[in-house]
């Protein structure tokens, strides 16, 4: 029992701070996993990263105006997604330019807001919380908003699931089927903005992309069907965040004793480890080869991982 106590430190399961962090992280990881699968398939990880980074602007503005930080992150992410859509994120060549322009402009404002935060509110620690997050700093009053935003983002993704999947695989095929490709893409971008805002609020604006893309990319390595990838990505996200919370809680007794390490560090590190483990060469799956055409089917996992 003493061994278990060393892992599950006293007070872990009764601490309301831990309970809130575990709840919010689980919800956010499930939403991020579902949406992240499409982010990776569509090659929009950079857009996701940018939406998270730009959350810095919204969250620092929220501190300045003393409104809830999640409101600030969500508002700025949705607005930035709208601008990206207008500039033309859905054209492959326009994608990076649109993202880069919006990102640059947003972070410039963040510099101003964070400066003003420290001047007017004397909130030096806020910068760290904004950028690197802290699930332990989330208050219970935020939970309803977290749940509401999660329901919207996850609901949108599930409603759009099939048209979005075909659009992501082949816009030509989707257009020929009468699917409104642009509208579906815009709906997805809205869901992405909300998911990124939730992740940014939870584990920090510049780390948010890890929770969005990491579990999804890991799931893509482990699964062969899109539905399973969504489920597995969510499970990996929940496991990484909960394990991260546990380790951060335990790190209170690590040097320097009495100061827990940042939760976000553990979460991001665990996601990276999971991604790397999923890329290890596995026993080759049984693949057929009929000798027709270039045979890429039998390529082992570590080879595919290099692509």
């Amino acid at each position, binding site marked *: 029992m003493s061994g278990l106590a060393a892992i599950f430190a006293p007070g872990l399961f009764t601490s309301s701070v831990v309970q809130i962090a575990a709840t919010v992280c689980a919800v956010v990881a499930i939403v991020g996993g579902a949406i992240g699968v499409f982010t990776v398939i569509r090659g929009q990880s950079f857009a996701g990263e940018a939406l998270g980074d730009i959350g810095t602007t919204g969250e620092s503005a929220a501190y300045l105006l003393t409104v809830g930080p999640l409101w600030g992150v969500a508002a700025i992410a949705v607005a930035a997604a709208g601008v990206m859509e207008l500039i033309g994120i859905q054209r492959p060549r326009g994608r990076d330019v649109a993202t880069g322009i919006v990102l640059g402009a947003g972070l410039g404002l963040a510099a101003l807001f964070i400066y003003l935060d420290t001047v007017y509110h004397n909130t030096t620690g806020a910068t760290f919380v904004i950028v690197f997050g802290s699930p332990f700093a989330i208050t219970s009053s935020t939970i309803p908003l977290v749940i509401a935003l999660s329901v919207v983002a996850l609901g949108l993704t599930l409603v759009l699931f099939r048209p979005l999947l075909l659009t992501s695989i082949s816009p*030509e*095929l989707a257009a020929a089927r009468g699917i409104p490709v642009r509208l579906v893409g815009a709906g997805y971008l809205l869901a992405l903005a909300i998911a990124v805002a939730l992740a940014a609020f939870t584990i920090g604006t510049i780390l948010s992309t890890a929770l969005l893309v990491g579990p999804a990319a890991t799931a893509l390595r482990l699964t*062969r069907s899109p539905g399973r990838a969504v489920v597995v990505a969510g499970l990996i996200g929940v496991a990484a965040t909960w394990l991260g919370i546990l380790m951060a809680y335990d790190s209170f007794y690590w040097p320097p004793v009495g100061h827990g390490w940042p939760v976000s560090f553990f979460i991001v590190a665990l996601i990276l480890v999971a991604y790397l483990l999923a890329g290890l060469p596995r026993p080759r799956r049984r693949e057929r080869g009929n000798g027709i055409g270039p045979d890429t089917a039998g390529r082992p996992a570590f080879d595919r991982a290099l692509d």
Partner: protein
Amino acid sequence: MNGGRPEAAGGVPILEVDGVSVSLAGKEVLRDVSFVIEPGEFTGLIGSNGAGKTTLFRVILGLQAPGSGRVLVAGRPRSRRNPLIGYVPQKFQLDPDVPLRTRDLVGLGIDAHRYGIPMPARSRRARIEEMLDAVDARAFADQRVGSLSGGEQQRVLIAHALIGRPRLLLLDEPLANLDLRSAHEVVALLARIAEEQRIAILISAHDMNPLLSVMDRVVYLAAGRAVSGTAAEVVRTPVLSALYGHHVDVLRVHGRVLVVAGEAGELADTSDPAHANTQVEIIS
């Protein structure tokens, strides 16, 4: 000839393209293109790169409005999401990392336009299995589409297009990147589908030879204009010369057809296909 054969007595043609002209960015891509496809007919849309094949497909699919002319599908004006038309696009590239199995892509052919997540249903599963058998794809049903060879991917895309029970199947250059053997397999599969299920097939290609034995009709596109008829009617020196607006030679070599364009004195390096569309055009 420019206007196709008169429709079969009593039957409504599955596709009627009537005087279609399209200009894109001020450039005339299609000029007064007319032809008719009857149910179950196998038609080759032949033309070099840039002849307007993909634009014509976009018009038939309702993705591009023609500047003039009209398209009738089974006697009715074309509309977006017409379930009578199945489509296999030219550009299809999928990363091997994308978690999409053959059976997933075939299944999307049933209900990709629907909202919400698919409910597992025995009838849906049975229909997918049936299509996998129809294109001989059962062996790789559970593999990622991105890991398949070009010929296998074409068969999966054909199953995706066929599962909605269309009456007309459009295929944009499906043979373009296939080796000879895979190309013949795909053509044989399509010919079987056309005959057994009476699905009309319109397949674009820059090389008509793999299609010669199965084509009921040729629609030959050059510089945005078209002639249609049987291969024997269309693929002749005077007809194609009139279409191109300058002299071309139609040569028949061991059952293969070569269309050679350009002045006799300009017949430089005809062995290099890269030169085929500049001074000399060979469709071999």
